[in-house]
């Protein structure tokens, strides 16, 4: 519990710029009473900082209507067109490859994404770029070969397999002569 002492009578009162009162008491002490106003009332002779121009107010952008047309990034359109062309090329190449496969190979390729090719040297599994599985005839060995068509970077993947399929059927010896055996030590990377 606190006890408040009655204030002494003010001999002089002055209104402060912020709205409070400055009271000078009889014993010479000063007391400020009241609550400071956020926006003090004008006092003659005192210049207040005022905003002469109203601050521009942020405005919400108008909501797009139901038929609003968005600006489209031209590079996005170019990327979409390029992707579309690649997909078309892949579809064409796949159709050509499927036409070159026999029914068993075709079914296997559509099921697993790879197919086997029998050659006099053994059998080859096409389906993984840079890693053509080769199982030489009469052994349990497995080699991973890398053979690609010239300029293969520009070709759709199924075209690469069609290219290699025709090449190995025509001249298997040539195929193995250029093949790089990735499973062999670097000094002995050619097979035959």
């Amino acid at each position, binding site marked *: 519990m606190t006890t408040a002492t009655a204030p002494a009578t003010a001999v002089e009162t002055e209104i402060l710029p912020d709205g409070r009162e400055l009271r000078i008491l009889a014993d010479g002490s000063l007391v400020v009473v009241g609550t400071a106003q956020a926006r003090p009332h004008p006092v003659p002779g005192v210049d207040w900082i005022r905003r002469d121009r109203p601050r521009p107010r942020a405005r919400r952008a108008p909501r797009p209507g139901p038929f609003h047309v968005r600006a489209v990034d031209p590079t996005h359109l170019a990327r979409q067109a390029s992707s579309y*062309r690649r997909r*078309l*090329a*892949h*579809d*064409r*190449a796949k*159709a*050509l490859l499927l*036409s*070159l*496969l*026999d029914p068993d190979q075709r079914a296997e390729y559509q099921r697993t994404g790879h197919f086997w090719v029998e050659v006099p040297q053994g059998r080859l599994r096409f389906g993984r770029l*840079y890693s053509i599985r080769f199982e030489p005839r009469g052994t349990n060995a497995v080699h991973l070969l*890398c*053979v*690609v*068509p*010239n*300029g*293969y970077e*520009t*070709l*759709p993947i199924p*075209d690469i397999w*069609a*290219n*290699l*399929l*025709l*090449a190995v*059927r*025509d001249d298997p010896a*040539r*195929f193995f002569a*250029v*093949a*790089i055996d990735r499973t062999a030590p670097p000094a002995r990377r*050619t097979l035959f």
Partner: protein
Amino acid sequence: MGLMRIIDETGDTVVTWAADDPATTAEAERIFRSLELERRMAFARPEGAPASEAERIHAFDPTAEEIIWVRPIQGG
């Protein structure tokens, strides 16, 4: 009508000719020669036949049903 498929970045480019039309046959033969000079390999097959029926050819055959051009191979 004969058909040449040249594999490329679009999948393949098709060139057709009619055996009874000297102009289209000559143009197809010209393209055949230019691709041979690029060391590409041509295979003829009955249209749509599997690779086992494809045969390597070194000269333009206007009676071929379908010729497929592939690229020489190399180690990767």
